[in-house]
Every structure is written in C-alpha cells, then in structure tokens.
C-alpha cells in the first residue's frame, strides 16, 4: 500500500505541476501582450520562448500522467474524465502559445488607441484561465468548490467576448486599411479563443463534477 500511495502522491504532484504551468502560461501571456503593446519586443520574444517551453513541458507531463494512470490502473472509474480534463486544459496552453506566435510572426501594427481594450480583453481571457486552474484543482480536492470557479470562468469568458466585440467594432470603425482591420480582427479573435478554450474545459468539468458527486 505504501508504494501505491507513494506513486499516487507523485502523480498528484505532477498534476499540480501541470496546472501550475497552465497558470504560469496565462500570466506570462498577459505580460507578453503588455510588452508587445509597449513595444518591448525583445522581452516579448523572451516571454514567447518561455511559453513555448512551458507548453512543451506541459505536453510531456500530461503524457507522463496519462501513462501512470493507465499503467498503475489508478482511478479506473474517473480515468477517462481526468484525461479529458488534462487534454483540454493542455489545449488552453496551445492556444496561448499560438496566439503569441502569430504576434511574433506577423508583428501586427496596433494603433495605440486600441491598447486599453487590447489589454482588457487579454486580462479577461487570462482571468478565465486562472479561474479554470482553480476549478480543476478543486475537482481533485474540493468538489463542492468547483461550481464557484466554473461560474467565474463563464463570467470572464463572457467578459472577454464583450470586450473583444467592442475591440473589433473599434477596429472596423477606425480609418485604417481594410487589410490591417482584417489582420487585427484575427488577433482579437485569437485572444478571445483562449477564454473559449477555458470555457470548453469547464463544460466538461461541470458534468464530471455531477458524476463524482455522492
């Protein structure tokens, strides 16, 4: 039993580390966006590199957790659900990385009057991801609290959608080239997608929570 308990605790710590990475990616994303808007491009690239590393390590960790769960037949009843949560949460990091990568590749020219809305949208998306991390942690340890966090994720996702919509309206209301408008819209949608991914995880999480309730 002691050995199995040791393995179990090891997997628990791996799951916690994985969630830490998701959280770190979100925070780093926020800082990177601010760097980009502040034209601190070198720092922006450093943050992108960090997120790439986090994404890579998170992938490895997720595979390792999955392997442990299957090899040691841990939580056979909830295994599928847990794996789905981890895989979907991993997609959030992928979205974060993809978004920043597009910034790095295309280097869009963002008019300074959009900065505030841009920051607000990304903040709302990042907040959704942070609440998602709380929700997932609670799913493992404190089932009663999950719904509170899920509620907050939905709140910030709506917030990101609303501010994102405002941002896109403002983009298309500006006197700039249509091609630039189209490009900026693409970036705005990319940021909104991060909170959408967080919401997708929560959709599953709320069902798994009901399944686990006594």
């Amino acid at each position, binding site marked *: 039993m002691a050995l199995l308990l040791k393995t179990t605790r090891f997997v628990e710590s791996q799951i916690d580390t994985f969630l830490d990475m998701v959280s770190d990616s979100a925070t780093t994303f926020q800082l990177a966006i601010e760097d980009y808007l502040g034209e601190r491009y070198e720092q922006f690239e450093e943050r992108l590199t960090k997120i790439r590393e986090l994404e890579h390590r998170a992938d490895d960790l997720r595979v390792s957790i999955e392997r442990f769960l299957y090899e040691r037949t841990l939580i056979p009843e*909830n295994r599928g659900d847990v794996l789905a949560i981890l895989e979907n949460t991993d997609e959030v990091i992928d979205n974060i990385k993809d978004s920043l990568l597009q910034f790095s590749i295309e280097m869009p020219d963002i008019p300074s009057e959009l900065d505030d809305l841009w920051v607000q949208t990304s903040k709302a998306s990042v907040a959704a991801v942070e609440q998602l991390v709380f929700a997932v942690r609670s799913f493992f340890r404190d089932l009663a609290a999950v719904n509170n966090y899920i509620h907050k994720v939905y709140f910030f996702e709506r917030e990101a959608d609303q501010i994102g919509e405002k941002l896109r309206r403002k983009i298309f209301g500006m006197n700039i080239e249509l091609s630039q408008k189209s490009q900026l819209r693409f970036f705005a949608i990319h940021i909104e997608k991060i909170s959408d991914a967080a919401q997708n995880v929560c959709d599953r999480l709320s069902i798994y929570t009901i399944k686990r309730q006594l």
Partner: protein
Amino acid sequence: MFFFYLLSGLFLGWSLGANDTGNIFGAAVETRMLKFKKAALIASIFITLGAVFEGSGPANTLGRLGSVDALAGAFTVALAAAIAITLIVRLRIPVSTSQTIVGAIIGWNFFAGRLTDYRSLITIASSWVIAFVLSGSIAALLFYLAKPWINRSKVHLLEQDLYIRYALIVIGAFGAYSLGANNIANVVGVFVPVSPFKDISIGGLFVLSGVQQLYLLGSLSIVTGIYTFSHKVMRTVGKDLFHLSPITALIALLAEAIVLFLFASRGLYNLLLSLGLPTIPLVPVSSTQVIVGAVVGIGLAKGGKNIRYNILGKISLAWIAAPVIAFIISFTMLFIMQNVFEQKVQQETHYIFDRITITKIVNDGYDNAALSVVNGRRFDSEQDVYHELSEQHSLSRQEIVDIIQIAEIYPLKVDTIKLTQSGMQRQFSAAQLLALRQYEAATYRHKWQLRQVLIRYPGFELYEAPDTQLKKEHNRRIEDQLNTLYRIFMVEETG
C-alpha cells in the same frame, strides 16, 4: 453414495458462487477498481472461512423448519431448490436459494407427513423482509454519515480512489465471509442430518467437525462457481445495479456485508444475548435482495430519483412465488423419486399411544379427554396424528406438536463408543460424558425417555421456565446436544 447425492447440494453451491459473488464484488470488478482474479481469490478464501466457522447458526434455523432425514430426500430437496432458482432467475426476478430451499423443505415436510414448524417459518420469512428493509436503512444511514465527511475531507481524487480500492477489498472480504456464513446453510444445510462425516483433529490443535467438513465441501462448490461463471455475472450485476460512483457502491457493499453478518453471526448473537439486548435471528437471507435494498436505500437518501420501483414489486413477488414454486417442484420430485426410482426419501416414523406415552402425556398436563380418539392406536405419519387430535378442538397446535413428540417411536441405545467413533464426543463436556457412561447400553423407545434421564445430571440441566434470552439459549443448546445424541444412539426398532 453420499457423495453422489450431495451433488445436488454442490450444484446449489456452484449456483451460489456464480450468482451471489457478483453482489459482493460486482461493483469493484465492473468499475475496474479490482481485477476479477483478485476478487475471485478473496471471495473464495473468505466465503470458505465464513461457511466453515460461522455457518452453523443459519443452518440450525433451517434445520428447525424441517429435518430431512434421508439422503435421497435431501438430494431431491436441494435439487428442487436449484431447479426452482434456475427457473425464477430466468424471469429476471432477484431471488436466492434462501427462498427456494425453504419452499423445498416444506415440500418435503408435506410429502413425508411431517409438521412444519410455523414459528421457524415466520422467523425465516419475516427475516427476508427485515433484511431488505434493514439493508436499505443501514445504507441510507451510512450515506448520510459519509456524505458530509467525504465533502469535508478534501482528500485528492487519486488518494480517495486508492482508499476506496482498499476498502472494497476489506469490506468485500467481510461481505464474502458473511455471505459464506449466512448462505452455506442453503447449500448443504439439508444434508446436515444425514452427513456421514466424522470430526477430524488437525495436528491436535484444531478440530474440524463433521458439519464443518460438509460446509467445507459446500464452500468448494461455491469456489468452483466463482471461478467458472461469476465473472460474467459480476459484470452484469455491476452494470445493472451500480450506476453509482465507487463511493456509493462501497456504501452499498458495506450495508450488505453488515446485514449478512447480523443474520449469520453466532458470536454477535451471543453477545447481544449476554447484554440482554434483542437478538437477530440467524437466518439465511438473499444477498441479491439485500444489495438491492441497500441501493434503494441510497437512492432514497439521495432524494428518491433514479430508483427503479418495479424492482420492489419483483422482490415482494420473489418472497412468495419462490417458496411456492420450490414447494411444488420439491413435492413432485419427491413423489417421482420415491415411486418411480424407488428411493427412500424419508425415514419411516411411527407414533404410538400406549400406556407409557399416554401416562407421560397426562403427567405433562395435557387434556386427557382429547386423547380418547388416539388411545391405543399406532400411526405412521405426524400429520395423521395431528388431524385426529386437531379435530378435538381442545388442544392448541403447539400442544399437539408436543404430544406427537412424546408418541414418536424412536428406539435408542446409549452407546458412548458410537459417540466417540462419530467424533461427536468433543461436543460434550466431561460431566455430560460421565452421565452418559452411567447409562451405557440402556435402551429407550422414545426420545423423551432418554431426555428425562439425562436432564437430571449436571451438564444436561435445563431451566424450567427460562425467563431470559440467555436461559432460553442455554436450553436450546442442550436440546441441540440431545438431538445429536438421538441421532447417534438410534437403533432399528425390534418389534
């Protein structure tokens, strides 16, 4: 020959192993918390331990309902119970051998012209209902207790799963032990009076009584059932019943194990007796119905949603239909066995109302006037005597049963060597054996004559009007010992 006849009992055991183990480990195997091989091994070990060490309580209760006294009779009764259960299970009605064996025994009682002890029958039948309700109540209570505790504990899902897995093994083992103790009576209980097994001393440390050897054989048939057929059943039971989380499955299993234990444990029975608390009758109950009761209890505790109420109707039907079907099959098969295959399905019994028995009956304070219809007559069936006496309307059923016991011809010869050879002397104290030796070679025509002699001696003394459960239990134990002596000292009637 005994082993051939025992086959029907072993078939019952196989069926029990195949069907009922699913009620213990179905959830664990279906939710993949436990591998089948591990579940089968734990079930095999603990069912055997429970059967051998604690199976006697429910068997005695079943024995009081009707003591099948011929090997072919026991074979037919067990076979009838097995056929009945096969038929009823095909109708997807949750039933167990507990119900069919009772019907089959009563079938034998009717066929052999013996009277059925209705008090035992009521005790047994009411226990089925009580076990179902009790299991539901215990499960609901456990659910209420566990829910806030689990919600507050904040143990990581993975750790919680680990603890549940170990709990499923431990509680599963407890459940298997209780199942063995409670249900072995159904499997080989009817063979106890005709068992040829003698007590065996193992290395001088441990004595395996003849009855325990019979239970061990029954357990082996259960184990065969577990390994050959229970995997499929476990999965079906798991799917059908356990649309529950592992924790609720664990609660249901614990409730089931507790109920089976309550209705099987002689130790607990004696403890309650010594504390002056009401006792729980030791009766074989249906593990299927008990687990369904537990699931319904949890369902109600959750607010009554998702309960398949038609299952309650099916179970109520099983309480009545199963014994009736088994009764009909048993009676018919006994008829065929005796008249077509010319097998002895019962010992011949005779009842005589001569000077000796009439004097005894009158001395015991029974109504003299009612005896005029039987005075000087000899009967070949308990039921004939009962009908004659019951027409007098002055005697109660119990009084007639007592009179029949006095009138029964049961030739006995005290033979302590026979007692030693049978290995049964270990069941008697030194004082009791001393009393028996004083009457070596003495012969008696009726059981009560030997009883009358022996109860004057220390070790065989009875409480005249037992007012406490403890005293009643003492009397019951002495009566059981006397019954053993009757069986061993029985000789052929010489004329």
